[in-house]
Each structure stands twice: as structure tokens, then as C-alpha cells.
């Protein structure tokens, strides 16, 4: 099997998945249910991907849980993306010093 062909096939499929809706859906969707559905998609999908994954990504689940709490509190207080992301990393780095 040729590795370059593997790369070509996976790249082609990945791109087609992403480009098709963006090229085909050029107008604003009028259907209310569909519009509402697409409106909620990001919140659901990002929530589902965050939890419980954040607790499982760290060496100690408690460190992940602390990062989750820190992230929610800081984002709630309006801290920006960079600040929240760095705070989560630091929370894990420091807490695992004691936990692991």
C-alpha cells in the first residue's frame, strides 16, 4: 500500500466533507426549524465535546475537574479565549504538581 495514496485519499475526503455545505448552502436558510437547529448546533456540539472529555484528558481527573471549574468561572466573568485557555492549562499544571 502506498502511503502517499493514503494521504491523498484522506485529504480529499476530509476536504469534501468540509467544503460541500459551505459551497452548496450559499443563501440564508428561511425554514425556521432548520435555522434554529443550526443555531443550536455549536453550543451542543462544543458542550458535548468538552464534558466529560476535559476530565479524562488529564492524568488526574480532579485536575481536569478543577480546570473545568476555572474555565467556567473565568468565561462567565468575560475573560477572553486566550486567558481562559491559559488558565485551564495552568490549573492542571499546578494542581497535578500536588495530585500526581
Amino acid at each position, binding site marked *: *500500500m502506498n*502511503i502517499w*495514496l*493514503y*494521504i491523498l*485519499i*484522506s*485529504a480529499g*475526503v*476530509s*476536504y469534501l*466533507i*468540509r*467544503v460541500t455545505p*459551505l*459551497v452548496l*448552502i450559499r443563501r*440564508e436558510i428561511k425554514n425556521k*426549524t*432548520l*435555522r*434554529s*437547529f*443550526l*443555531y*443550536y448546533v*455549536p*453550543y*451542543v*456540539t*462544543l*458542550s*458535548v*465535546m*468538552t*464534558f*466529560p472529555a*476535559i476530565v479524562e*484528558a488529564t*492524568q488526574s481527573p480532579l485536575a*481536569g475537574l478543577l*480546570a*473545568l471549574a476555572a*474555565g467556567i468561572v*473565568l*468565561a*462567565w466573568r468575560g*475573560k*477572553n*479565549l*486566550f*486567558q*481562559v*485557555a491559559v*488558565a485551564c*492549562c495552568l490549573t*492542571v*499544571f499546578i494542581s*497535578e504538581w500536588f495530585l*500526581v
Partner: protein
Amino acid sequence: MMIDTNTAWFRRGLRDGIPIALGYFAVAFTLGFAAKNAGFSAFQAMIESFTNNASAGEYAVFSLAAAGAGYWEVAVMTLVTNARYLLMSCSLSQKLSPDTSLVHRMLVAFDVTDEIFGISIAVPGRLNPFYSYGAMSVAIPGWGIGTFLGVAVGSVLPLRLASALSVGLYGMFLAVIVPPARENRVILGTVLLSFAVSFVSEHWALLSGVSSGTRTIILTVALALGAAVLFPIKDDEEGAAQP
């Protein structure tokens, strides 16, 4: 008042792309290790990352390649593991201005990842493609170079470092979903319910067997559809949708 030039949007994307690039670097480094086991050279693994921009998808490709799988299997597995991007691109199509040209649409599509999608939908109003380009300009190199070094060094990052960097990506998701959840009860309820259902589904026999990518799709379709039916959005004067 935000400056609305393409340059300003590019800079904003670049700034928001930096934490993504750091998180990607750590994940890609680990991915490079899998690529090495599959017989990919550092250069080949880097090209795979530059052209795929997908962690689970690439991991599947490396595992299949290691097993000497057929090309059809690689195509189907790539489709399955990356299918959630189809949903994200649909959602993103409504975030772009309808006037956005074909070229911009094709370029934005290149790097629709969980993270770039996350920051793109958090932009107020319409998405300017240059915001995406700014984020891509740091995220893609972070991803590709991380993979290259993972193969070249041939080991995983120190656990403590990988552990800390990996939550950065989740931190970003929180920065995207929490502020609107604070302002809007329906979004808050949707987020909390999604957390709960996601947690339960991992241990629920019916869904615990499927891959996390497929589970994400099933839960997203079910929960977003439920929210859409129960709380359809209203359009306000500025054209921004509100539940």
C-alpha cells in the same frame, strides 16, 4: 467599536489562533508518534496533517495504514470520523455573509476543525473569512510541525506537559459557550443538558460502543433538534438570531 477591515479581522484571528496552535502542537506531537508506528516519515506525517487537519480522522488513517488496510477502508473511516465537520460547515454557512465569494468559502472550508469552528461562531455578527485565515495561519503550522516533530523525536511529550496543554482546547470551548449561556437561559439549559447527556451516554450501553466522533454527531443532532423545536429562534432587527 471594532475596526472592520480585513487586516483587523486577520489580526484578531491570529490572536485567537495562538492558544489553538499551542494545544494543537501538543496533540499533534502525540499523533506523530502514531504516524511513526504506521511507517510514515516525518515529512509524510506533516503533509497528512497539513492536508487533513483532523485529530481523530488522522489517527484512524495511521492505525489503518499500520494494519495495511485498503484505500476504500481509509476513505470510509475518514468519512465517519470526520462527519461532524459536515454539520459544523452547515452551521458555518449561515454565519458567513450570503455574498461571501466561492473562493473564500473554499478557503474557509480547508480548516473547519472543532476549535476553529468554535472561535468562528463566537465572532459577533457575520464571520469575516480573514478572521479564519488569521487563525489558520498559526493553527495549521502548529498542527503540522507538531506532527513532524512527533515522528522525528519518536516519543510522546512529557505527561505533565501534555496533560496541561490538552485542556487548553477545552478551555477555549468554554470561552465560546459560557458567555452566551450567561446571557440566554435557553442556551444555558442547552449547554447543561448537553454536559449531562454526554456524560451519561459514555456509560450508556447503547452509545458507549460507538466512537466519540459518532456520539458527538448523534447527540448534537438530537439535542439541537429538540432545542430548535421547543425554542425556535426569533430574528431581531439587526438580523442576529435570538432564541
